[in-house]
Protein backbone atom coordinates (compact mmCIF):
# COMPACT_ATOMS: atom_id res chain seq x y z
CA UNK A 1 0.00 0.00 0.00
CA UNK A 2 1.24 3.47 -0.88
CA UNK A 3 0.23 6.51 1.12
CA UNK A 4 0.90 10.13 0.23
CA UNK A 5 0.76 12.78 2.95
CA UNK A 6 0.57 16.42 1.92
CA UNK A 7 2.60 18.70 4.16
CA UNK A 8 2.42 22.44 4.39
CA UNK A 9 4.73 24.87 6.16
CA UNK A 10 2.91 27.38 8.36
CA UNK A 11 3.89 30.00 10.93
CA UNK A 12 3.80 28.81 14.53
CA UNK A 13 0.40 29.36 16.16
CA UNK A 14 1.76 32.10 18.44
CA UNK A 15 3.33 34.11 15.59
CA UNK A 16 2.65 37.79 15.38
CA UNK A 17 0.76 38.37 12.15
CA UNK A 18 2.09 41.35 10.19
CA UNK A 19 2.68 42.21 6.54
CA UNK A 20 5.39 43.91 4.52
CA UNK A 21 6.05 45.41 1.07
CA UNK A 22 2.86 47.40 0.98
CA UNK A 23 0.94 44.62 2.70
CA UNK A 24 1.56 42.26 -0.19
CA UNK A 25 3.64 39.74 1.77
CA UNK A 26 3.60 38.07 5.15
CA UNK A 27 6.23 39.53 7.49
CA UNK A 28 8.29 36.45 8.24
CA UNK A 29 11.06 38.10 10.27
CA UNK A 30 11.38 36.26 13.58
CA UNK A 31 8.67 33.78 12.71
CA UNK A 32 9.06 30.15 13.77
CA UNK A 33 7.87 27.73 11.11
CA UNK A 34 6.06 24.52 11.87
CA UNK A 35 4.34 21.71 10.03
CA UNK A 36 0.73 22.76 9.61
CA UNK A 37 -0.83 21.17 12.74
CA UNK A 38 -3.58 19.37 10.84
CA UNK A 39 -1.04 17.86 8.44
CA UNK A 40 1.19 16.76 11.29
CA UNK A 41 -1.04 15.72 14.17
CA UNK A 42 -3.73 14.06 12.14
CA UNK A 43 -2.76 13.25 8.54
CA UNK A 44 0.87 12.24 9.06
CA UNK A 45 0.39 10.45 12.37
CA UNK A 46 -2.55 8.44 11.02
CA UNK A 47 -0.45 7.41 8.02
CA UNK A 48 2.32 6.32 10.40
CA UNK A 49 -0.16 4.32 12.47
CA UNK A 50 -1.40 2.56 9.35
CA UNK A 51 2.17 1.65 8.47
CA UNK A 52 2.77 0.36 11.97
CA UNK A 53 -0.10 -2.06 11.42
CA UNK A 54 0.99 -2.89 7.90
CA UNK A 55 4.80 -2.62 7.66
CA UNK A 56 4.81 -3.23 3.90
CA UNK A 57 3.12 0.12 3.41
CA UNK A 58 5.21 3.03 2.19
CA UNK A 59 4.62 6.65 3.09
CA UNK A 60 5.59 9.50 0.80
CA UNK A 61 5.50 13.10 1.91
CA UNK A 62 4.98 15.97 -0.47
CA UNK A 63 5.21 19.69 -0.10
CA UNK A 64 4.96 22.38 -2.73
CA UNK A 65 7.29 25.28 -1.98
CA UNK A 66 10.77 26.76 -2.00
CA UNK A 67 13.93 25.44 -0.30
CA UNK A 68 12.72 26.91 3.01
CA UNK A 69 10.26 24.00 3.14
CA UNK A 70 13.03 21.38 3.39
CA UNK A 71 13.50 21.75 7.19
CA UNK A 72 9.76 21.24 7.62
CA UNK A 73 9.85 18.06 5.57
CA UNK A 74 12.79 16.88 7.68
CA UNK A 75 10.74 17.56 10.82
CA UNK A 76 7.96 15.47 9.35
CA UNK A 77 10.47 12.73 8.49
CA UNK A 78 11.48 12.66 12.16
CA UNK A 79 7.98 11.44 12.95
CA UNK A 80 7.88 9.01 10.05
CA UNK A 81 7.58 8.63 6.30
CA UNK A 82 9.92 6.95 3.84
CA UNK A 83 10.49 9.36 1.00
CA UNK A 84 9.67 12.93 0.22
CA UNK A 85 9.02 15.24 -2.67
CA UNK A 86 9.31 18.95 -2.79
CA UNK A 87 7.93 20.64 -5.85
CA UNK A 88 10.11 23.68 -6.22
CA UNK A 89 7.86 26.71 -6.67
CA UNK A 90 6.57 29.65 -4.67
CA UNK A 91 3.16 29.82 -6.23
CA UNK A 92 0.36 29.52 -3.71
CA UNK A 93 -2.84 29.25 -5.75
CA UNK A 94 -4.70 26.15 -4.59
CA UNK A 95 -5.35 24.88 -8.12
CA UNK A 96 -1.69 25.30 -8.97
CA UNK A 97 -0.55 23.47 -5.83
CA UNK A 98 -3.07 20.66 -6.22
CA UNK A 99 -2.01 20.25 -9.85
CA UNK A 100 1.61 19.77 -8.76
CA UNK A 101 0.62 17.13 -6.23
CA UNK A 102 -1.64 15.49 -8.80
CA UNK A 103 1.31 15.17 -11.19
CA UNK A 104 3.34 13.24 -8.61
CA UNK A 105 0.30 11.21 -7.56
CA UNK A 106 -0.35 10.20 -11.16
CA UNK A 107 3.23 8.93 -11.47
CA UNK A 108 3.13 6.94 -8.25
CA UNK A 109 -0.48 5.70 -8.06
CA UNK A 110 -1.12 6.04 -4.33
CA UNK A 111 -3.84 4.06 -2.59
CA UNK A 112 -4.44 6.76 -0.08
CA UNK A 113 -3.78 10.50 -0.02
CA UNK A 114 -4.06 12.41 3.24
CA UNK A 115 -4.17 16.16 3.69
CA UNK A 116 -4.86 18.25 6.78
CA UNK A 117 -8.32 19.79 6.85
CA UNK A 118 -6.89 23.24 6.15
CA UNK A 119 -3.72 25.23 6.68
CA UNK A 120 -3.70 27.58 9.63
CA UNK A 121 -2.35 30.44 7.50
CA UNK A 122 -4.42 30.47 4.29
CA UNK A 123 -7.39 28.54 5.76
CA UNK A 124 -8.34 27.37 2.28
CA UNK A 125 -9.57 23.85 2.97
CA UNK A 126 -9.25 23.37 -0.76
CA UNK A 127 -6.23 21.25 -1.68
CA UNK A 128 -7.79 17.87 -0.87
CA UNK A 129 -10.96 18.47 -2.86
CA UNK A 130 -9.14 19.98 -5.80
CA UNK A 131 -6.66 17.12 -5.85
CA UNK A 132 -9.42 14.49 -5.64
CA UNK A 133 -11.16 16.11 -8.60
CA UNK A 134 -7.97 16.27 -10.68
CA UNK A 135 -7.34 12.58 -9.95
CA UNK A 136 -11.02 11.66 -10.29
CA UNK A 137 -11.01 9.98 -6.86
CA UNK A 138 -13.58 9.95 -4.07
CA UNK A 139 -12.99 12.59 -1.41
CA UNK A 140 -13.81 12.50 2.27
CA UNK A 141 -13.45 15.89 3.86
CA UNK A 142 -13.03 16.69 7.56
CA UNK A 143 -12.48 13.10 8.66
CA UNK A 144 -12.43 12.58 12.43
CA UNK A 145 -11.74 8.82 12.34
CA UNK A 146 -10.14 6.64 9.72
CA UNK A 147 -10.02 2.83 9.75
CA UNK A 148 -8.77 0.55 7.02
CA UNK A 149 -9.72 -3.07 6.36
CA UNK A 150 -8.13 -4.37 3.15
CA UNK A 151 -9.21 -1.96 0.45
CA UNK A 152 -12.20 -0.63 2.37
CA UNK A 153 -11.92 2.51 4.45
CA UNK A 154 -14.42 3.31 7.18
CA UNK A 155 -14.37 7.01 7.83
CA UNK A 156 -16.19 9.22 10.28
CA UNK A 157 -16.57 12.77 9.08
CA UNK A 158 -17.98 16.02 10.37
CA UNK A 159 -21.31 17.11 9.01
CA UNK A 160 -23.27 20.15 10.14
CA UNK A 161 -24.59 19.32 13.58
CA UNK A 162 -23.02 15.91 13.96
CA UNK A 163 -21.04 13.24 12.20
CA UNK A 164 -21.49 10.57 9.60
CA UNK A 165 -19.86 7.17 9.21
CA UNK A 166 -19.19 6.05 5.67
CA UNK A 167 -17.37 3.28 3.86
CA UNK A 168 -15.48 3.80 0.64
CA UNK A 169 -13.04 1.81 -1.47
CA UNK A 170 -9.44 2.87 -2.03
CA UNK A 171 -7.97 4.77 -3.78
CA UNK A 172 -9.16 7.81 -1.96
CA UNK A 173 -8.34 11.36 -0.83
CA UNK A 174 -9.05 12.26 2.80
CA UNK A 175 -8.74 15.59 4.60
CA UNK A 176 -8.02 14.99 8.28
CA UNK A 177 -9.43 16.89 11.27
CA UNK A 178 -9.11 16.42 15.00
CA UNK A 179 -9.79 12.88 16.15
CA UNK A 180 -8.08 11.01 13.31
CA UNK A 181 -4.95 10.55 15.41
CA UNK A 182 -3.19 11.86 18.50
CA UNK A 183 -0.23 14.22 18.42
CA UNK A 184 3.20 12.59 18.89
CA UNK A 185 6.65 13.84 19.79
CA UNK A 186 9.50 12.61 17.55
CA UNK A 187 12.10 10.46 19.28
CA UNK A 188 15.89 10.64 18.90
CA UNK A 189 16.01 7.72 16.48
CA UNK A 190 13.44 9.40 14.29
CA UNK A 191 15.33 12.68 14.32
CA UNK A 192 18.58 10.92 13.32
CA UNK A 193 16.89 8.91 10.58
CA UNK A 194 15.19 12.01 9.19
CA UNK A 195 18.49 13.45 7.97
CA UNK A 196 19.15 10.72 5.47
CA UNK A 197 15.69 9.98 4.13
CA UNK A 198 15.48 10.62 0.36
CA UNK A 199 14.00 13.98 -0.49
CA UNK A 200 13.51 14.62 -4.19
CA UNK A 201 13.29 18.17 -5.40
CA UNK A 202 11.31 18.28 -8.63
CA UNK A 203 10.47 21.08 -11.02
CA UNK A 204 6.83 22.13 -11.21
CA UNK A 205 4.67 21.05 -14.13
CA UNK A 206 3.36 23.87 -16.28
CA UNK A 207 -0.02 24.96 -14.96
CA UNK A 208 -1.64 28.34 -14.81
CA UNK A 209 -2.47 29.78 -11.39
CA UNK A 210 -6.12 30.77 -11.32
CA UNK A 211 -5.92 33.23 -8.43
CA UNK A 212 -3.37 35.49 -6.76
CA UNK A 213 -3.28 37.52 -3.56
CA UNK A 214 -3.43 41.28 -4.20
CA UNK A 215 -2.74 42.30 -0.60
CA UNK A 216 -3.45 41.60 3.06
CA UNK A 217 -5.16 43.54 5.84
CA UNK A 218 -5.07 42.96 9.56
CA UNK A 219 -8.36 42.48 11.34
CA UNK A 220 -9.11 45.77 13.09
CA UNK A 221 -8.52 45.35 16.80
CA UNK A 222 -11.37 45.81 19.25
CA UNK A 223 -11.65 49.41 20.31
CA UNK A 224 -11.58 48.56 23.98
CA UNK A 225 -13.51 46.43 26.38
CA UNK A 226 -16.36 47.88 28.39
CA UNK A 227 -16.08 46.53 31.94
CA UNK A 228 -19.12 45.89 34.04
CA UNK A 229 -18.92 45.55 37.83
CA UNK A 230 -19.33 42.03 39.20
CA UNK A 231 -22.22 43.13 41.39
CA UNK A 232 -24.11 44.63 38.46
CA UNK A 233 -24.80 41.73 36.12
CA UNK A 234 -28.11 43.31 35.12
CA UNK A 235 -26.13 46.12 33.50
CA UNK A 236 -24.37 43.61 31.24
CA UNK A 237 -27.72 42.22 30.17
CA UNK A 238 -28.97 45.74 29.44
CA UNK A 239 -25.87 46.53 27.33
CA UNK A 240 -26.18 43.31 25.36
CA UNK A 241 -29.85 43.97 24.78
CA UNK A 242 -29.92 47.71 24.12
CA UNK A 243 -26.42 48.65 22.97
CA UNK A 244 -25.02 45.58 21.22
CA UNK A 245 -28.51 44.29 20.35
CA UNK A 246 -27.37 40.68 20.37
CA UNK A 247 -29.87 39.29 22.87
Amino acid at each position, binding site marked *: MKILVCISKTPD*TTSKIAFKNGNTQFEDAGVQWIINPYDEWYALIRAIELKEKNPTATIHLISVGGADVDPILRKAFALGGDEGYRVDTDNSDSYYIASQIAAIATQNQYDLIFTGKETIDYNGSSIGGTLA*ELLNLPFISLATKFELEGQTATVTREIDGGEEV*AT*VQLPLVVSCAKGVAEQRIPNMRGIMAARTKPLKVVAPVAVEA*LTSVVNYELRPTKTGVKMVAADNVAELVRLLHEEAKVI
Partner: protein
Amino acid sequence: MSVLIFLDQADGQIKKSAYELLSYGSSIAKQKGIAAEAVVLGNVSTDLAALGKYGVQKVYIVDGAGFQHVDAQVYAAAVSDVATQVGASIVVFSHNQTGKAVAPRVAARLKAGYVSGACALPDFSNGFVVKKTVFSGKAFANVQIHTPIVVIALNPNSYQIQEADGVAIVAPLSIAVAPASIQVTKVNKVSGEIPLAEADIVVSGGRGLKGPENWGIIEDLASSLHAATACSRPVADAHWRPHHEHVGQTGFQIAPNLYIAIGISGAIQHLAGVNRSKVIVVINKDPEAPFFKAADYGIVGDAFEIVPQLTAAIKKLG
Protein backbone atom coordinates in the same frame (compact mmCIF):
# COMPACT_ATOMS: atom_id res chain seq x y z
CA MET B 1 -24.19 34.67 -17.45
CA SER B 2 -25.63 34.26 -14.00
CA VAL B 3 -24.77 33.67 -10.39
CA LEU B 4 -25.56 30.12 -9.30
CA ILE B 5 -26.19 29.70 -5.57
CA PHE B 6 -25.77 26.22 -4.11
CA LEU B 7 -28.45 25.59 -1.50
CA ASP B 8 -27.31 23.10 1.07
CA GLN B 9 -29.99 20.93 2.59
CA ALA B 10 -30.27 18.53 5.49
CA ASP B 11 -33.19 16.25 6.23
CA GLY B 12 -35.29 17.76 3.48
CA GLN B 13 -34.85 21.35 4.65
CA ILE B 14 -32.72 24.15 3.28
CA LYS B 15 -30.04 24.96 5.85
CA LYS B 16 -29.91 28.28 7.63
CA SER B 17 -26.59 29.13 6.00
CA ALA B 18 -28.32 28.91 2.63
CA TYR B 19 -30.48 31.98 3.34
CA GLU B 20 -27.41 34.05 3.99
CA LEU B 21 -25.89 32.67 0.82
CA LEU B 22 -28.98 33.56 -1.21
CA SER B 23 -28.65 37.18 -0.08
CA TYR B 24 -24.93 37.14 -0.85
CA GLY B 25 -25.32 35.56 -4.29
CA SER B 26 -28.21 37.83 -5.22
CA SER B 27 -26.21 40.88 -4.21
CA ILE B 28 -23.35 39.80 -6.47
CA ALA B 29 -25.83 39.31 -9.30
CA LYS B 30 -27.11 42.85 -8.74
CA GLN B 31 -23.57 44.24 -8.70
CA LYS B 32 -22.94 42.58 -12.07
CA GLY B 33 -26.42 43.11 -13.51
CA ILE B 34 -26.93 39.40 -14.13
CA ALA B 35 -29.49 36.83 -13.00
CA ALA B 36 -29.40 35.19 -9.56
CA GLU B 37 -30.32 31.52 -9.69
CA ALA B 38 -30.06 28.72 -7.17
CA VAL B 39 -29.75 24.96 -7.27
CA VAL B 40 -30.93 22.30 -4.83
CA LEU B 41 -29.85 18.67 -5.08
CA GLY B 42 -32.45 16.17 -3.95
CA ASN B 43 -35.94 16.57 -2.62
CA VAL B 44 -36.76 19.25 -0.09
CA SER B 45 -39.98 20.28 1.56
CA THR B 46 -38.91 23.93 1.86
CA ASP B 47 -41.09 26.30 -0.20
CA LEU B 48 -38.58 27.06 -2.92
CA ALA B 49 -40.68 29.66 -4.74
CA ALA B 50 -40.70 31.69 -1.54
CA LEU B 51 -36.89 31.93 -1.72
CA GLY B 52 -37.56 34.73 -4.23
CA LYS B 53 -37.75 36.90 -1.14
CA TYR B 54 -33.98 36.64 -0.86
CA GLY B 55 -33.46 37.98 -4.36
CA VAL B 56 -33.17 34.81 -6.39
CA GLN B 57 -35.15 34.60 -9.66
CA LYS B 58 -35.04 30.90 -10.33
CA VAL B 59 -34.41 27.75 -8.30
CA TYR B 60 -33.37 24.58 -10.13
CA ILE B 61 -34.07 21.25 -8.50
CA VAL B 62 -32.10 18.22 -9.51
CA ASP B 63 -33.96 15.23 -8.24
CA GLY B 64 -32.29 11.98 -7.38
CA ALA B 65 -31.94 9.50 -4.58
CA GLY B 66 -28.15 9.83 -4.81
CA PHE B 67 -28.18 13.16 -2.99
CA GLN B 68 -29.30 11.95 0.40
CA HIS B 69 -25.74 12.10 1.69
CA VAL B 70 -22.92 14.23 0.45
CA ASP B 71 -20.62 12.35 -1.89
CA ALA B 72 -18.35 15.18 -3.01
CA GLN B 73 -17.72 13.53 -6.36
CA VAL B 74 -21.42 13.10 -7.14
CA TYR B 75 -22.41 16.52 -5.85
CA ALA B 76 -19.59 18.29 -7.67
CA ALA B 77 -20.42 16.61 -10.97
CA ALA B 78 -24.07 17.59 -10.59
CA VAL B 79 -23.42 21.22 -9.61
CA SER B 80 -20.84 21.65 -12.39
CA ASP B 81 -23.25 20.21 -14.95
CA VAL B 82 -25.97 22.56 -13.81
CA ALA B 83 -23.58 25.51 -13.88
CA THR B 84 -22.59 24.67 -17.44
CA GLN B 85 -26.15 24.03 -18.59
CA VAL B 86 -27.51 27.30 -17.22
CA GLY B 87 -24.44 29.30 -18.17
CA ALA B 88 -23.40 30.36 -14.68
CA SER B 89 -20.24 32.45 -14.47
CA ILE B 90 -20.15 32.72 -10.66
CA VAL B 91 -20.96 29.78 -8.39
CA VAL B 92 -21.31 30.40 -4.66
CA PHE B 93 -21.24 27.96 -1.75
CA SER B 94 -21.35 28.28 1.98
CA HIS B 95 -17.93 27.45 3.47
CA ASN B 96 -19.48 24.85 5.76
CA GLN B 97 -18.87 21.11 5.86
CA THR B 98 -20.68 20.50 2.57
CA GLY B 99 -19.06 23.46 0.87
CA LYS B 100 -15.59 22.36 1.95
CA ALA B 101 -16.20 18.97 0.38
CA VAL B 102 -17.88 20.06 -2.82
CA ALA B 103 -16.82 23.60 -3.81
CA PRO B 104 -13.12 22.91 -4.52
CA ARG B 105 -14.12 20.00 -6.74
CA VAL B 106 -16.59 22.14 -8.65
CA ALA B 107 -13.92 24.79 -9.12
CA ALA B 108 -11.46 22.22 -10.44
CA ARG B 109 -14.07 20.75 -12.81
CA LEU B 110 -14.95 24.16 -14.20
CA LYS B 111 -11.34 25.30 -14.13
CA ALA B 112 -12.57 28.22 -12.11
CA GLY B 113 -10.49 30.28 -9.72
CA TYR B 114 -11.62 29.44 -6.20
CA VAL B 115 -11.75 31.60 -3.11
CA SER B 116 -12.91 29.95 0.10
CA GLY B 117 -13.62 31.69 3.38
CA ALA B 118 -14.91 34.81 1.60
CA CYS B 119 -16.26 37.43 3.99
CA ALA B 120 -17.48 40.30 1.80
CA LEU B 121 -18.94 41.06 -1.60
CA PRO B 122 -16.43 41.00 -4.46
CA ASP B 123 -14.78 44.22 -5.53
CA PHE B 124 -14.99 44.77 -9.27
CA SER B 125 -13.09 48.03 -9.44
CA ASN B 126 -9.94 46.26 -10.55
CA GLY B 127 -10.81 42.85 -11.95
CA PHE B 128 -12.55 40.33 -9.72
CA VAL B 129 -11.24 40.57 -6.15
CA VAL B 130 -12.68 38.69 -3.19
CA LYS B 131 -11.81 39.33 0.44
CA LYS B 132 -11.26 36.23 2.57
CA THR B 133 -10.18 35.56 6.12
CA VAL B 134 -6.64 34.23 6.59
CA PHE B 135 -4.38 33.42 9.54
CA SER B 136 -7.33 31.92 11.38
CA GLY B 137 -9.33 35.12 11.40
CA LYS B 138 -6.46 37.40 12.39
CA ALA B 139 -6.22 38.96 8.94
CA PHE B 140 -7.80 39.19 5.50
CA ALA B 141 -6.44 38.60 2.02
CA ASN B 142 -7.82 40.27 -1.08
CA VAL B 143 -7.61 37.60 -3.74
CA GLN B 144 -7.83 38.26 -7.44
CA ILE B 145 -9.47 35.65 -9.61
CA HIS B 146 -8.19 35.43 -13.17
CA THR B 147 -10.65 33.02 -14.75
CA PRO B 148 -13.92 33.65 -16.62
CA ILE B 149 -15.74 31.33 -14.23
CA VAL B 150 -15.42 31.90 -10.50
CA VAL B 151 -16.28 29.78 -7.45
CA ILE B 152 -16.63 31.42 -4.04
CA ALA B 153 -17.28 29.79 -0.65
CA LEU B 154 -18.67 32.29 1.86
CA ASN B 155 -17.82 32.06 5.58
CA PRO B 156 -21.01 31.28 7.48
CA ASN B 157 -22.43 34.20 9.43
CA SER B 158 -20.56 36.88 7.54
CA TYR B 159 -23.26 38.40 5.33
CA GLN B 160 -26.46 40.10 6.36
CA ILE B 161 -29.63 38.28 5.27
CA GLN B 162 -31.80 40.62 3.21
CA GLU B 163 -35.48 40.07 2.52
CA ALA B 164 -37.76 41.80 0.03
CA ASP B 165 -40.76 40.85 -2.10
CA GLY B 166 -40.28 38.25 -4.76
CA VAL B 167 -41.24 34.81 -5.94
CA ALA B 168 -38.80 32.47 -7.62
CA ILE B 169 -39.57 30.22 -10.56
CA VAL B 170 -38.96 26.62 -9.58
CA ALA B 171 -37.54 24.60 -12.45
CA PRO B 172 -36.74 20.88 -12.38
CA LEU B 173 -33.57 20.07 -14.23
CA SER B 174 -32.58 16.64 -15.34
CA ILE B 175 -28.97 15.66 -15.49
CA ALA B 176 -27.21 12.32 -15.40
CA VAL B 177 -26.18 11.57 -11.82
CA ALA B 178 -23.23 9.27 -11.22
CA PRO B 179 -23.57 6.50 -8.62
CA ALA B 180 -22.07 7.34 -5.23
CA SER B 181 -18.80 5.70 -4.19
CA ILE B 182 -19.24 6.71 -0.55
CA GLN B 183 -21.75 4.57 1.35
CA VAL B 184 -23.01 6.24 4.48
CA THR B 185 -23.74 3.63 7.14
CA LYS B 186 -24.55 5.78 10.13
CA VAL B 187 -25.46 9.37 10.97
CA ASN B 188 -24.98 10.68 14.50
CA LYS B 189 -26.76 13.97 14.91
CA VAL B 190 -26.10 15.87 18.06
CA SER B 191 -29.71 15.88 19.12
CA GLY B 192 -31.43 18.36 21.36
CA GLU B 193 -28.52 20.75 21.05
CA ILE B 194 -28.09 23.70 18.76
CA PRO B 195 -25.31 22.94 16.27
CA LEU B 196 -22.31 25.12 16.98
CA ALA B 197 -21.90 26.10 13.34
CA GLU B 198 -25.42 27.49 13.11
CA ALA B 199 -25.70 29.12 16.52
CA ASP B 200 -26.23 32.87 16.80
CA ILE B 201 -25.08 32.78 20.40
CA VAL B 202 -22.39 30.54 21.88
CA VAL B 203 -21.64 30.08 25.59
CA SER B 204 -18.19 28.64 26.13
CA GLY B 205 -16.42 27.33 29.20
CA GLY B 206 -12.74 26.84 29.95
CA ARG B 207 -10.51 25.28 32.54
CA GLY B 208 -11.63 27.92 35.02
CA LEU B 209 -14.77 25.85 35.57
CA LYS B 210 -12.64 23.25 37.35
CA GLY B 211 -14.47 20.12 36.25
CA PRO B 212 -17.24 18.60 34.11
CA GLU B 213 -19.59 18.47 37.08
CA ASN B 214 -19.74 22.27 37.03
CA TRP B 215 -21.09 22.61 33.50
CA GLY B 216 -24.66 22.99 34.71
CA ILE B 217 -24.26 26.77 34.99
CA ILE B 218 -22.96 26.92 31.40
CA GLU B 219 -25.84 24.84 30.10
CA ASP B 220 -28.41 26.88 32.01
CA LEU B 221 -27.03 30.11 30.63
CA ALA B 222 -26.96 28.61 27.13
CA SER B 223 -30.53 27.43 27.33
CA SER B 224 -31.74 30.82 28.58
CA LEU B 225 -30.23 32.32 25.40
CA HIS B 226 -31.04 29.44 22.99
CA ALA B 227 -27.30 29.24 22.58
CA ALA B 228 -24.93 26.44 21.66
CA THR B 229 -22.23 25.40 24.11
CA ALA B 230 -18.52 25.29 23.35
CA CYS B 231 -15.27 24.85 25.26
CA SER B 232 -11.53 25.46 25.15
CA ARG B 233 -9.14 22.77 24.02
CA PRO B 234 -7.85 21.54 27.40
CA VAL B 235 -11.47 21.03 28.42
CA ALA B 236 -12.11 18.76 25.43
CA ASP B 237 -8.73 17.07 25.82
CA ALA B 238 -9.57 16.23 29.44
CA HIS B 239 -12.90 14.81 28.21
CA TRP B 240 -14.87 17.21 30.37
CA ARG B 241 -16.78 18.04 27.22
CA PRO B 242 -17.16 16.31 23.83
CA HIS B 243 -14.61 17.08 21.12
CA HIS B 244 -17.17 18.64 18.83
CA GLU B 245 -17.40 21.55 21.30
CA HIS B 246 -13.71 22.41 21.06
CA VAL B 247 -13.26 25.81 19.44
CA GLY B 248 -10.02 27.46 18.46
CA GLN B 249 -7.21 27.22 16.01
CA THR B 250 -7.25 23.44 16.07
CA GLY B 251 -10.96 22.99 16.75
CA PHE B 252 -14.01 24.65 15.24
CA GLN B 253 -13.82 28.18 13.97
CA ILE B 254 -17.03 29.97 14.69
CA ALA B 255 -18.51 33.41 14.03
CA PRO B 256 -21.64 33.86 16.14
CA ASN B 257 -23.26 37.21 16.90
CA LEU B 258 -22.43 36.75 20.56
CA TYR B 259 -19.68 34.67 22.17
CA ILE B 260 -19.60 34.43 25.96
CA ALA B 261 -16.30 33.08 27.29
CA ILE B 262 -16.35 31.88 30.87
CA GLY B 263 -13.18 30.86 32.70
CA ILE B 264 -11.15 30.93 29.48
CA SER B 265 -7.83 32.78 29.54
CA GLY B 266 -7.89 33.85 25.89
CA ALA B 267 -4.78 32.14 24.54
CA ILE B 268 -3.94 33.17 20.98
CA GLN B 269 -4.92 29.71 19.71
CA HIS B 270 -8.31 29.98 21.35
CA LEU B 271 -8.89 33.47 19.94
CA ALA B 272 -8.09 32.18 16.46
CA GLY B 273 -11.30 30.19 16.52
CA VAL B 274 -13.62 32.84 17.90
CA ASN B 275 -12.25 36.21 16.79
CA ARG B 276 -14.82 36.46 14.01
CA SER B 277 -17.63 36.67 16.60
CA LYS B 278 -19.46 39.99 16.36
CA VAL B 279 -19.63 40.63 20.12
CA ILE B 280 -17.46 38.94 22.74
CA VAL B 281 -18.23 38.87 26.46
CA VAL B 282 -15.56 37.63 28.87
CA ILE B 283 -16.12 36.51 32.43
CA ASN B 284 -12.88 35.76 34.23
CA LYS B 285 -11.69 36.15 37.79
CA ASP B 286 -8.28 37.37 36.65
CA PRO B 287 -8.35 41.04 35.56
CA GLU B 288 -5.12 40.39 33.62
CA ALA B 289 -6.60 37.58 31.54
CA PRO B 290 -5.57 38.26 27.92
CA PHE B 291 -9.11 37.60 26.72
CA PHE B 292 -10.27 41.01 28.00
CA LYS B 293 -8.14 42.65 25.29
CA ALA B 294 -10.17 40.87 22.62
CA ALA B 295 -13.54 41.44 24.28
CA ASP B 296 -16.33 43.96 23.88
CA TYR B 297 -17.73 43.52 27.39
CA GLY B 298 -16.12 42.02 30.45
CA ILE B 299 -16.77 41.17 34.06
CA VAL B 300 -13.96 40.39 36.49
CA GLY B 301 -15.32 37.91 38.96
CA ASP B 302 -15.97 34.33 39.97
CA ALA B 303 -17.88 32.45 37.29
CA PHE B 304 -19.68 30.37 39.90
CA GLU B 305 -21.28 33.54 41.28
CA ILE B 306 -21.68 35.61 38.12
CA VAL B 307 -23.05 33.06 35.67
CA PRO B 308 -26.16 32.05 37.67
CA GLN B 309 -26.94 35.75 38.20
CA LEU B 310 -26.53 36.37 34.50
CA THR B 311 -28.90 33.52 33.65
CA ALA B 312 -31.47 34.89 36.06
CA ALA B 313 -31.18 38.41 34.62
CA ILE B 314 -31.59 37.11 31.08
CA LYS B 315 -34.67 35.12 32.03
CA LYS B 316 -36.16 38.34 33.41
CA LEU B 317 -35.64 39.94 30.03
CA GLY B 318 -38.16 37.41 28.74
